[in-house]
């Protein structure tokens, strides 16, 4: 229905279109009308938290002032951050059983490797993924005492990064963490919540970055393994291509890229080489030219 407005925000169809175009230009994330209800609710939350009473006033302030705080609040509202420890952990199995041994071999083996093995979790949301990687490495990779490993987490959302830094989680996030691991690497902080111990928290470096923003992604280099799961599905074709190019630039030649189980790089860009491992498909940055 043209010109229709939904309850709460008073957003008309034309407003929705203007808003989604603006948000796409700033972040690369595209919302179709199918996400209308979700977007309306989140915008409503932003308007209620602002000094403005209407969408028109709030949106005008957002655009005209180029207010980075307002935009960041909006990004925080509109990005989905639900995750949990050891999610889709068949990919962590793959990392341990095949990918890391291959990385180690390609870099000269345990005795000759120069510099740390670098692993990136992007987006890392509230931290469950990078900390899961750390736990799996510490508990299950027999080379962890012989090799340096750097783990990095990055996300566009500053609020989830703050939560990732605090690393305190409830039952839902921790449901798949084995009890012995919980006892070994977490501290109870009350109300059923557990905090990741300082030793692991301090080993994970967190960054705020937009995966579609090529200039800021240039800071990420020489990663051996990248987890980029369940984010490309939010992007349109062009933004997905940009994200793929930026991931390529962040990786070492021969490096491995894990996507979410429903995502396929082959539909986005031809620059990675799909490799079938026993646990599923992983994508590699080619080692040579052409």
């Amino acid at each position: 229905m043209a010109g229709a407005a939904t309850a709460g925000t008073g957003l008309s169809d034309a407003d929705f279109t203007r808003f989604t175009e603006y948000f796409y230009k700033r972040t690369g994330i595209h919302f179709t009308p199918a996400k209308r209800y979700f977007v309306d609710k989140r915008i409503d939350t932003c308007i209620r938290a602002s000094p403005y009473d209407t969408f028109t006033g709030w949106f005008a302030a957002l655009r005209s002032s180029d207010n980075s705080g307002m935009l960041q609040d909006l990004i925080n509202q509109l990005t989905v951050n639900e995750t949990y420890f050891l999610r889709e952990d068949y990919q962590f199995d793959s990392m341990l059983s095949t990918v890391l041994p291959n990385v180690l071999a390609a870099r000269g083996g345990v005795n000759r490797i120069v510099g740390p093995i670098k692993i990136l979790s992007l987006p890392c949301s509230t931290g469950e993924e990078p900390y899961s990687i750390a736990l799996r490495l510490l508990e299950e990779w027999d080379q962890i005492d012989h090799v340096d490993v750097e783990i990095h987490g990055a996300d566009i959302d500053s609020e989830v990064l703050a939560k990732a830094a605090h690393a305190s989680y409830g039952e839902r996030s921790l449901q798949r963490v084995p009890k012995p691991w919980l006892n070994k690497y977490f501290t109870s902080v009350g109300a059923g919540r557990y905090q990741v111990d300082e030793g692991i928290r301090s080993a994970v470096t967190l960054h705020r970055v937009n995966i579609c923003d090529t200039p800021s992604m240039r800071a990420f280099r020489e990663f051996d393994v990248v987890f980029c799961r369940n984010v490309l599905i939010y992007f349109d074709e062009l933004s997905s291509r940009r994200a793929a190019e930026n991931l390529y630039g962040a990786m070492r030649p021969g490096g491995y890229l894990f996507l979410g189980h429903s995502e396929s790089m082959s539909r986005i860009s031809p620059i990675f080489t799909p490799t079938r491992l026993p646990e599923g498909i992983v994508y590699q940055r080619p080692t040579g030219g052409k």
Partner: protein
Amino acid sequence: MGLVRKQAPQQPEEVLPEKRSTEALREQLADPDPDCRREAALGLEGVAEAVPDLLARVAVETETNVRDAVLTTLSGYDTEQVAGSLAVHLASDDAALRTAVAEALATMPQSVPALLPDLLAAPDHDVRVMTAMVLADMTHPDTAVWLIRMISEDPHPNVVTAAIDAFLPVAGPEHASVLEGAVQRFPDDPFLRFTVQAALPRLSGTA
């Protein structure tokens, strides 16, 4: 050994490589090092005056990853002029270039529709096959209409088969007659007939 924290500086902003000027990036597009050319192509995102340099690079670039980076940056200019300049390569003898350009055009739904009358009437049927590939991946409300037109009207069976392949993901039971019509137009083409016969049960939900 073990988990180690990255040494300072911690913030990526602090370690960003120096930003090069537009002029330097344009020159860098011809650097002998492919990585430098690729960086330049991505660094020129949003630099309108570099579009002619990027378009020129598409034709001569030999490294596929550099060419893909050039095409990604050009895809951000969803204009008739850029799309038209890229569409020329759909007739290239270089299959990888044809495919890469088709993938890039599929991300340009604002400008590609204006090119379709010429592309659908191209005398080279391979260009029309590539056009079906573009439509297969392009997000646009009219892609089904254009593909049905190709299936119903194009005189070459390879183009019709390519259009059917592109159309099947969005086809429903109501489109069975469109596919059957294609078989009737090319009764001696076994591959086209096989494609339709394999698809019809899926369309009707009997597969």
